[in-house]
């Protein structure tokens, strides 16, 4: 079955980009990686059976590429202004501020936990699917979710107390 590459890009670009930018915390790097992953898919287009297959392939590929990229960065640290979080703009909308705070806190989680949280709460995958995607036991995924939520809740409460 022929798949429409342009359609795949249009349907999945936000998913791929969003995972990359939230995990790497670097917009430029995320764009580069996201493009790479689509080009990888393009090379393998004959093996792609359906749009759903493409989505699954892309999601798995961007997760693993992000994790590999993070490992490389540990060996050669990059300092870029785009990696420095911008100061929170004043907003009258408390929900917007809360969302931004939560996003920042997720981005500060350790890498493995960060990816697990992104796949659970951004991509709405269940722990079994996350475990399969990241090649880790389901219990580890659940452990990381449990601990990450406790950490995020605790930090949010602390911030509320200090405000």
């Amino acid at each position: 079955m022929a798949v429409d590459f342009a359609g795949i890009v249009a349907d999945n670009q936000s998913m791929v980009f969003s995972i990359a930018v939230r995990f790497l915390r670097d917009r430029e790097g995320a764009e580069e990686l996201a493009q790479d992953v689509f080009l990888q898919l393009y090379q393998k287009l004959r093996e792609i059976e359906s749009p759903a297959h493409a989505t699954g392939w892309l999601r798995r590929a961007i997760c693993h590429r992000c994790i590999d990229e993070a490992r490389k960065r540990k060996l050669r640290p990059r300092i870029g202004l785009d990696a420095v979080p911008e100061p929170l703009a004043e907003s009258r909308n408390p929900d917007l501020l809360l969302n931004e705070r939560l996003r920042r806190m997720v981005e500060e989680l350790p890498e493995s936990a960060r990816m697990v949280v992104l796949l659970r709460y951004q991509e709405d995958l269940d722990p079994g699917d996350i475990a399969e995607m990241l090649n880790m036991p389901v219990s580890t995924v659940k452990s990381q979710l449990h601990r990450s939520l406790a950490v995020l809740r605790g930090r949010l409460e602390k911030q509320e107390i200090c405000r």
Partner: protein
Amino acid sequence: MNFDDELRAALQREPAPADFAARVLGKTTKTRALPLWRRPAALAIAAALALTALVPSAVYQYRQHRRAIEARDQLILALSIARVQLQQVRERIQHNTRHKI
């Protein structure tokens, strides 16, 4: 809204840049023009095969390392859960003591 819902709301997908799709499609044209042996995928496969021949134990070591990291994560979680529980017990005791005074 409970915390799970707040997290989902905060982590809604961030849209890709407006010209992202155009740039990707533009690059596919360039990729198609490369001879097969120069395409990045072919080079990567060749390099991977060479490495595989040279370091057969690397895969085994990597898998062992991954197992160890997973076990470590579980141990840390177990001890973390223990800490939380001990703290909660202490709080309960303090709460009960205050109420009895």
